[in-house]
Structures are given as C-alpha cells and as structure tokens.
C-alpha cells in the first residue's frame, strides 16, 4: 500500500524513532566472566563423570564412541566381576556427542556442565579415571539421565527477559 507521504523523508524519522526505542531497551549481552547464563539441564558439557560403584566394566561406552576415544582396561576381580583398572579418555578428541552416556546400560556415565575446558598442555586434556570419578560436588548433566532433571537449576531464557546475570 502506498501513502501520499511515501518517499517524503518520513521513513527517516521512523527509523530514528526506532533506534531511539532501542536506546531505552535493556541490553541483550552478557558480561561473560562476571555474568553467566544458567545452561540447559541437558547440556552436553565438559568432564564426563564416571561412577565407580555402578560401572561393571562392560565397555559398551568404548564400543559406542565414534572417536574410539575411551580406553578401558579391566581385569577379573575376586567374585568373578570385572575390576576397571584403566578408564581414560582424551577430552581434546571428544566431540561431546553423548553416545557413551546414552549407551551405558547401568547409568554409570554422565556428561558434565562445564564449558571452560581450555588448557595450556594437550596432556592435561587426557582424563584418567581419578579425574572422572564421581564425587557429590561434581555437577552432572541430565542428558540421557532424566532422573537428575528436577535437582538442576532452571535454564535462563532470554525470551522471558531474564538476563541470567548471576555474579560470581
């Protein structure tokens, strides 16, 4: 639809009014190191968490890994069960697909919630079973583990006007 006022410079004023409205709106950026958004409950993040009690050493995770990244060595223990001697993965090669977590029949493996995984040495990215071991202070993602979901904090959604700016 064309109006008599089209092309008479009114669009310029409309544009300036629009940008002025933007001036009064809250900002959409997050000041990262100080402010952090809460991630999705099913975030596929850094540092797998491995539960020694639940793991039977079946190595399904190692078989499902598309990178062939999980190295697991077991030996026969006292009551004929496997003892996991070595459980190691190179997180530098991990693509965080989560197939190992999905395939674990005993819910012994979890993905983490961390995302700051840079390091000065490649060697530091190789995680041994001591580093992966589950302790109560480690944040586990609810990816493929829906039972964990209720305990995790709600994700910050920008659409709700929540800037999620929690200070550390």
């Amino acid at each position, binding site marked *: 639809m064309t109006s008599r006022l089209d092309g*008479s*410079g009114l669009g310029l004023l409309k*544009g*300036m009014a629009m940008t002025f409205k*933007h001036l009064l*709106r809250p900002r*959409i*950026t997050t000041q990262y190191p100080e402010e952090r958004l809460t991630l999705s409950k099913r975030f596929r993040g850094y540092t797998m968490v491995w539960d020694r009690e639940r793991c039977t050493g079946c190595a399904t995770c190692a078989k499902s890994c598309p990178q062939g990244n999980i190295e697991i060595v077991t030996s026969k223990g006292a009551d004929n069960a496997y003892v996991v001697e070595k459980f190691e993965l190179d997180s530098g090669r991990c693509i965080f697909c989560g197939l190992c977590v999905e395939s674990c029949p005993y819910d012994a493996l979890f993905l983490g919630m961390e995302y700051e995984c840079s390091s000065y040495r490649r060697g530091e990215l190789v995680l041994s079973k001591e580093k992966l071991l589950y302790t109560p202070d480690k944040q586990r993602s609810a990816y493929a583990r829906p039972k964990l979901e209720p305990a995790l904090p709600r994700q910050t959604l920008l659409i709700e006007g929540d800037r999620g700016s929690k200070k550390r």
Partner: protein
Amino acid sequence: MAPINFWVLDNFWAHLALFGIAIIAFVLLMVMVFIWFERRAFGPFQLRRGPNRASPWGALQPVADAIKVLLKEDIVPAVADKWVHFIAPIIGFLPVLLIFAVVPFHRGHGLLPDMNIGILYVVAISALGVVGVFMAGWASGNKYSLLGGMRVIAQMVSYEVPLVLSIISVVLVAGTLSMNGIVAAQEVPYFLLMPLGFIIFLIAAMAEINRGPFDLLEADSEIVAGFHIEYSGMKFAMFYLAEYGHALAMSAIAATLFFGGWKGPGDVYLGILWFLLKIFFIFFLLIWARVTFPRLRVDHLMGFGWKFLFPLALANVFIMAAEVIFWGGADGGVPWWVIFVNFPAAIALIYLWSRLFKFGGGRVDVTA
C-alpha cells in the same frame, strides 16, 4: 562582568602561546571524550554496553586505544610518494585545530582572535582538510585509497554548497559574520527561526565530516578503509584524531550558529558549560543519525546533495532574505513569530521537493 585583566591577555606572544596550547589541549581532550562518548552511546543503541573494561564506564578506553596505536609499526608502502604520504595526516589535522581559534567559548571571546569574519574563516579553513585526505589517498599508491580520495573530493564539493548556503541564511538574519556577533544576535535560537536551514546544515555537516550515512570515503565494505588504508601507527592516529576533531568542530559551529553558543540561563561564567552541553547534544544527533541510517550509494549521494539539499538551501536563503527585508527591524533580524511561518514552510518545502525529487540514472527496476 569585569573584564579579565591578566598580563597575558595584553602581551601578544604570551596570549598566543597560552591560548594556542589551551586550544590544542581542549581539542585533544575533547576528541578522547568524543570517541568514548560515541562508543558508549553506540552500545545501548545496539542493545549492548559499549566499552566497560578499562576503568569504570570504560572511560580510559580511548587512552588505551591511543597507546596501542602509538606502539604500532609505522609502515610506508614501497610505491608511496614518501613526502606526501608523510605530510598528509598533518595537513588533514591542522585545519581542525585552526577552526577552534575563532569559536567563541565564552561571552565575547574567541580563544585566539575575535575575528569579525569568523564564520567565513571557518568555512575557508574547514574546506582545507579535504586536501590532506586527498593527498593521503593519492600518495598511498593504492587503488582503494585513491577511490576514497576521489570520492571525498566529489562529496566535499557537493555538500560545501548547501552548507555554506545554510550558513548564509544565518548570516543574513544575524547581520554579522562574527561568531560572537551571531551568538549575541540570537534572542531565539536559530534552529527555531530557520528549521530548514538547521536540517540542511546538519545533513551537510555530516557529509562534510564524512561520518554517519555519508562515510563513503572509508566505506569498509566497498573500498576497505578508503584513504587511510595504507596508514598505520601515529599517522593513522592523526587521521582518527582529525575525523573526531572535525566532528567536534562541526558540533561547535552548529551549537554556535543554531543553538546560541554560550548563551544560557545562569551566570555568564557558566557560558562554557552551556556551550559544551550544546556541543554534546549536536554530537548526539550525529551519533543518532549514524547509528540509524545505512550508507548512501555514490550516485545517490551526489543526487541528494545537488537535487535535494541545494535547491532547498537556496529556497531557505530566499525565504530568510525576504523575511529580513519585509518583517525585519531597523537593525536587521527577524521577529520571533516567524517560527510559525518557517516551520510549516519547512515541512511544505521538504514534502513538495520529495515529490519532485527522484533518484535517476543507474537504477534499474526489474519487473517480471
């Protein structure tokens, strides 16, 4: 107000040295503040925060930038014309400093001389900056910088005309060329008396200082960085300084011509504060325009300058001249109620001309 009687004001050389240094310090400081202010204002316009790392509110960001740029290697291209390449930033920056010699910061004082042809001097000097820019574009020995230099010549020649015409309408009403005289003559700020003239001045000034939608000479997406593509380090900093110094100068001139310079309520010593406030207001308008409008195409730029601004500026001069002749008092000037004539006249003229004005040439409408 008692006249200030320092011995420095009586001694020519002491006066020159003191206020020369004061002007240089003022321009350098204000350029830093302007850079900070612009980046800080761009933030909320684009829903972000702008610089906020270096000191509270990012106030030291321009200092950090300056230190960074000074530590950079100074590269001169092998095919460059060495001397012209060296001297171009100086010639680009010098006119900016010279403009401030006549800008009245305070009642009755330009900082250096109180020149009776102040605004003529400003027009003459501010046109010199383009020489430096073109020298830079030419001497770099680079296609893109030459294109930028060529563009700036075309743009300056086109937009100088409406700029000067809108200044002429101010001079007609004020009846003087002196910057102080113009300020003193403003009973009503001139942007109310001649809205059309103010709009034309603002648009032409934006083009003149090569920012906002008129930054064709350094159009990043077309010719990389235009005239300063081959400049680095201190020389680049000079161009950056000149760009913002020019914006500062144009804001100061617009504040003087259309917003009544140092005039404002309160003590006369507050004059400089009012002046700075008005400068920042004008600069905010420039930022606002820059953040809103996309860059013009080259032919559209020329068309807009010659076919739209130029006739309207002429019309504005004729209207103001007629009002001075028929309604003006014995000492020139126009009565305040011409506001009610000039605002409808401005709107009508802009509307009318937008009907007559069409972008021609180079535009192909493809219809199925």
